Structures are given as C-alpha cells and as structure tokens.
C-alpha cells in the first residue's frame, strides 16, 4: 500500500521554491507534507498534496519538472523510540532507505513518516507482516 508523492526539480535560484508553492496555492491545493533535498546547485522538493493531478498540471504549466512516485507512509507513536522500531524492521531485512521525512498532525497523536526505500515491494511486504501502521491515501486526505 503506497501513496503517491510528487517531486519538483528546483534550481538553486532565488524565489524558486516560493514560485512552486505559489502555483499550488493559487489552485487551492493543500500541502500535507513537504521536504527539500538540496545540493549547492539544485534541490528536489517533495510534496504530499491534496490533489496530485491538479498539482502536476499547474506546476508543469508554470514550467516546472514534476514527477509522481510511490512512497510509504506510516504512523509511528509520537514518543522516544517511535521511529526506531519501524526502521528496525527494514534494518533487519537489509532494505536501504533512500529518504525519509516526518510530520505531525493535529488530528492524531502519532507522528507521520514518509519513506522511500530501495526496494519498495519488499519494504511493503515486510511492513505488512509487522505491526507497523501503514497509512493509505484516503487516510492522508483526512489529516
């Protein structure tokens, strides 16, 4: 069970992130979570939004390069060791993490973690066989 994330190529230039966020705001698209990976030259803006289709269309129209891809989102107890127990599952099976970002929601007392792993299929199957709480897109929409 995966959720679609969109990622946007951002050149390391003044005002580019704001421009992307502006575009989404104008279309009334809600950003659930976001993270930025950056190098000195460019960055990758990763977003979980309320309406992927609309977000992609409007960003592309404004000249951005956008890609949609699968991520796994899990809820972990918002307490010490909360994330660690989930990561331990992957560690045990030797599944490498590509990236991860987390956010908290006012609607739940759990922390929500977005992850991309090297082997997504295997990652899902081991998660499903654990007691980790995997969130689907419907749930994300509710947050």
């Amino acid at each position: 069970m995966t959720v679609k994330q969109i990622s946007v190529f951002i050149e390391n230039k003044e005002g580019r992130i704001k421009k992307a966020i502006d575009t989404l705001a104008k279309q009334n698209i809600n950003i659930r979570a976001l993270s930025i990976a950056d190098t000195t030259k460019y960055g990758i803006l990763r977003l979980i939004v309320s309406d992927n289709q609309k977000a992609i269309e409007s960003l592309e129209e404004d000249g951005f390069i956008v890609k949609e891809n699968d991520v796994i989102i899990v809820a972990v107890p918002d307490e010490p060791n909360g994330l660690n127990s989930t990561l331990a599952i992957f560690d045990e099976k030797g599944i490498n993490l590509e990236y991860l970002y987390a956010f908290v929601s006012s609607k739940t007392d759990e922390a929500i973690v977005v992850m991309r792993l090297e082997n997504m299929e295997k990652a899902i199957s081991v998660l499903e066989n654990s007691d980790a709480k995997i969130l689907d897109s419907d749930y994300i929409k509710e947050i």
Partner: protein
Amino acid sequence: MYWNEEAECMGKEEKEKLQLERLQKTVKHAYENVEFYRKRFDEIGLKPEDIKTLKDIEKIPFTTKSDLREAYPLGLLAVPREEIVEVHASSGTTGKPTVTAYTQNDLDIWGECIARGLKMTGAEQDYIIQNAYGYGLFTGGFGIHHGGNKMGAITIPISAGNTQRQLDTMVDFQSDILTCTPSYAMYLGESREKAGIPLEDINLKTGIHGAEMWTDEMRKRIEASLGIKTYNIYGLTEVMGPGVAQECGEQNGMHIQDDQFYPEIINSETGETLDYGEKGELVLTSLTKTGMPILRFRTKDLTSLIGEKCECGRTTVRMTRITGRSDDMLKIKGVMVFPSQIEKALLKVSGISPNYMIHVTRPNILDEVEVKVEASKELFSDEMKEMEKVEKQIQASIRSEIGIRVDVTLCEPESLPRSEGKAVRVIDERNL
C-alpha cells in the same frame, strides 16, 4: 640574427616572383597527382596553366577541414607512399582526425621554418631547447624537434607533463629555451615559484608558445614567473604544424614564412579576398610541400595581415594575433571542441537533446568548463542519488566525446539564456 636572410628579408618583387613560380609548380603537382584536386579543378574547368599571376590563386576552390577528413587517412597524397617518412594528425574530436603526411623534403621545410623562429628568439647552436610540447601525433613536439635538429641546437625531448622533472631539467641542464603551450608555461612558472626555486638557479632566456590562444596578461605572467621573453608561434596540422608563423623580438605580429606558405585573408561569408589590414579568415596555400600539398586551406582563424617591413628587418608578411574563429569551435585546454559534440554526448545519455550551454572560464591558469543542461522529465528523479548519477553519466559521455573533464549542472527548463529565440550555446569568459 637571421636564420635565412635571403628568404626572410627578400624584396617584394623578388618574393612575388618566387611565390608565383612555387605556386604554379605546387598547383601542377597537386593537379597531376591528387584526384581530389583534379576533380575540383575539372568541375570548374580550371587548368594549372590558368594560374598566371598570384592573383589567379583566387580562382582555385577552397579546401576545408571536412575535405581532409573525407580523405582520411592518406587520400590526399601527391607522392608514392615510399616517399612518405612521417605522419601527424589533429585530435579527431569532431569525427575522423585530419592527417598530414610528410616527405623528407617536407620535414626539411618544417625544420627550416622552426629554425627561423628559433633564431628570431636569439637562439644559437649551443642552446638547449627544453621541448615541453607533447610528442606524438600532435605536431607540437616533433615540429620543434625537427627545427632544433635543423639548427643544430640541443633539443631535450621532455614532452609535456611531469612538472617536477621539467623544473629539475631547467635547473640541471640550464635550458635556454622553453617550448610549450602558454598555459603549461604559466603552470611551470607558478610551480617554480611554489617550489621556491630562485630565478637565478634557472637559465631560461626565452619561451616559444602557441597551439592555443593567449592574452597579454598571460604573457606578462609567464615572462615574470620564468624570467623570459616569450614569442607567439602559429601553425596547424592541416598545413604543416607549428612554425607557419612566429613573432620576432618586436612582438608585433607573427612573421608568416611566406616563401613556403602563401597567406590570404578572406571574408568568411562570401569567400571574397580582402586587402592587407582587413580582418577576416586566414587561408593558406603551401608553396613547397610535396607529400601533401594543400591549396587554399580555410583555417577558420580570424586575423589580419601586415604587409610593411618589420622593424627587425624581415620583409615577410605578418599576421596579427588571432582574435577568434569563423566557426563555433572552442579551444579548451588546447583541445578543439565544437558545441555539436556536447549535443551528441547529451543525446547519448538521455535519448533526447536537451537545451544546454557551455560556460568556459579561466579562474587561474587552466580552463574550466561548466556545461549547464536544462533538466527534463527524462533526466529528473525524486532521488538525489539518481540525479547525481545522471550528472555523472552526462559528464562521462561528454568526456568520451571531447576528451576533457567538464562540470555538469542541471538547471530548470527554459532557464538558459536565449537570444532572438536562438539558444546561446557558448559563454566564453576567458578574455582571449
């Protein structure tokens, strides 16, 4: 003071008579022995006998680099193979290399031209030439070497690279002349300073530098850091190699060895011949070479000619510093680079040809190149690892295409400058 006073200080009339005689002979030799030239002449109904004056040279069709490439490797020979003793070739970065083949006569001419240049710098028979031009297919190393031999000087064939050894050789052998590319000379100068070798410990008097464009700024730095006077040398593989022209002590234009090579300046758009003093593309015709005579070769180098007698006493026609190219070729780190090669390299990586820009700078001594590539869906990934991989792939592909390492930067679509709708492909900030 002169290596060959008769040739170098010849009066105008006498020179023109000699040039015409030699031109007629070369044209006849080329027409009779090289199918390529015969076909070209026949197509327009031109016969060698039609060349009655020097001005008649304008009737002869131009020869271009691509003509030479099509004749690769030895299609333009004008003599039987057994007469050829050496070959050189330009870097084959834009496809097939262009090859020049030399008879013993041609090597003697080459040596003669270089010897004249060595003498211009004040060289004598007992001088030690530290020849740090690359030895190999490149004409630099061997060209200087032949000239050193001709003069009877001592040539150290140290070739390019191995900086420590270069410095040791300067000190141990007390070399008199350094021959290498200007950028390498600059590097050696700075290396000497870094190594703390005092100027008194070396004995260099002069440097002969060429094969790439250089500025007065570079000249001053080289001269100061090595305690030498420097001389600009010009040549190209297609015509012979270095030594076609060189500066004398006046440092006011390069003397073309015009009893061996006949220079013209043309308007590169119309092909029309221009007068002395006017800037245009240099066209060269060999007057004495026998192995591979070359008629009206378009060098693509932009310069102008000076006809007046030089202060040094020589009457040979001079060419001013090369100010650019009539095509889009760039010379980076001494290597010829065409923007189309970058395009090809990008196509290989992504299967598409994204918009790109080549940004050349020279922050210190050496050229640096950044290739900016507009990213696209095909090149983009949400994973940094993948993005870095793409950049590395592009870098490797460009390197295998042009032979030099460049920095690759991905940027947003439509972010590279365009001028009148056309993409700006090259920004060269080296002030050459």
